[in-house]
């Protein structure tokens, strides 16, 4: 039963990732990406990592992709159609194969781990974040802070230019 669901979700994940590339309209591509992120959350949920799945939905599908869709709609790009670039496509194909070759040993390890005792609940992730990975957590929060300050500065500067 679980295996069948896994195959369905994995197939949808790949199909939606392909859809991002081959859809003609930018907005359809964006919706395919939303579906893709949702399906990755479903894969997390199948591994009993409910917190990761929920965080994936809240952060990526619920916040970042809404902004992407928002910008596409605001610029009304639905008239603009993506032109295929064979050079970039070939380049990314080579890059994907290189990446896959590099990641293959790591992937083998993950497959052997999956389904055993993965600790994906809120408590264990919280404990890990605030003890073992506290420095990277704080650095990430400072990074986001810098981005916020940068956004405020950009917004203020354009305003001044308009008034003068």
């Amino acid at each position, binding site marked *: 039963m679980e295996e069948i669901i896994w195959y369905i979700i994995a197939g949808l994940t790949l199909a939606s990732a392909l859809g991002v590339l081959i859809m003609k309209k930018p907005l359809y591509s964006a*919706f395919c990406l939303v579906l893709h992120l949702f399906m990755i959350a479903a894969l997390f949920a199948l591994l009993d990592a*409910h917190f990761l*799945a*929920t965080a994936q939905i*809240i952060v990526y599908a619920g916040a970042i992709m*809404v902004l992407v*869709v928002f910008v596409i*709609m605001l610029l009304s790009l*639905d008239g603009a159609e993506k032109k295929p670039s064979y050079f970039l496509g070939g380049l990314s194909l080579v890059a994907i194969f290189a990446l896959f070759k590099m990641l293959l040993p790591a992937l083998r390890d993950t497959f052997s781990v999956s389904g055993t005792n993965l600790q994906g609940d*809120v408590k264990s992730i919280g404990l890990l974040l605030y003890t073992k990975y506290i420095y990277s957590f704080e650095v990430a929060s400072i990074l986001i802070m810098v981005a916020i300050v940068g956004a405020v500065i950009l917004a203020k500067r354009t305003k001044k230019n308009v008034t003068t």
Partner: protein
Amino acid sequence: MEWIILLIKIIVVFNLAQGLASICVWVERKGSALIQDRIGANRAGAYFYTDNILLKPVFAVVRLLGILGIVNTLFCDAVKGLFKEDFVPKGTSNFIHSLGPFMAVFPVFLAYALIPVAPDFEIGGYKIRPQVANLDVGVLFIFAMASIAVYGVTIAGWCGNNKFSLLGGLRSAAQMISYELALGVSLVSMVILYGTLDLYDMVVKQTVLIGGFLPAWGIFTQPLAFVIFFVAGMAETKRAPFDLPESESELVAGYFTEYSGMKFLLFWLGEFAEIALLSALVVLMFFGGWDIPYVTLPGDWIGALIGHIVFVSKVVFFCILQIVVRWTLPRFRYDQLMHLGWKILLPASLLNLLITAVLKLAL
């Protein structure tokens, strides 16, 4: 047996969601008439007469429901929606046009899976928790579903293929992102206070008394968080005074201008299910769920039934409160909306979070 229990739970909770949404529709139609000093729907079914002796009581009931407007709002409108032409505007596919109402309804009903509707009880040796899914992420899942619900509106706005719909979709996306922040932060302060993400445990934590007389309901321990959560939640449901996405005097009907028939009714259903969901969350986190102060419910099915009735009555009260607010207050201006969200609610919720965290550490 486990599957049967799960199936019964799903049926009960899904019907509860549908039933609450239907009650909201009726209160909206008839209550708005009362507020505006009109009579409201009272004709459909009101003239049902028959000479058949056996059918007389049935027709009498239908007549009563007709005079109360229930036949019109819950039966006739649905039938009308089913038989109307389903119009798809030029430039969009039928698939993506249907995706809009689907995405507006589906996440809301999925979120009901995490709502506990009654206290635990034992029946026939089985210990039953009346909650469809008991995830350890609890209330975060509901929040995730709320953030997904934005897509229904944006897709609908984009599919209309006209400027009014697009403006409505854009406004709603901006509004929902803005108020999600205040909603989330006020939620975090409740999570810190109760020390759990599970809605059931939150209710259990509220059943005690503070100092022997005051029930430990969230409204008494976190009044500011209640105000922020309720206001931000009402903004998430996109109804007046926050109904800028569909403001009919400037945008025709906003994001669902180009929808007709059943797809239009699905937007309505999603909206009212959202109202009931917000009410259920408010009741569970701030008003003690099924808790009656100074009364301990028995642990068997009778206690669960009483608890369920208490819970549903509280939820219906908050649904009616939201509908009264919707028909009382005028619409905000766009800058006022953004000002309220970013400059009042968000700083207030952050301040509340700070105070809660400090008090939690100190006490």
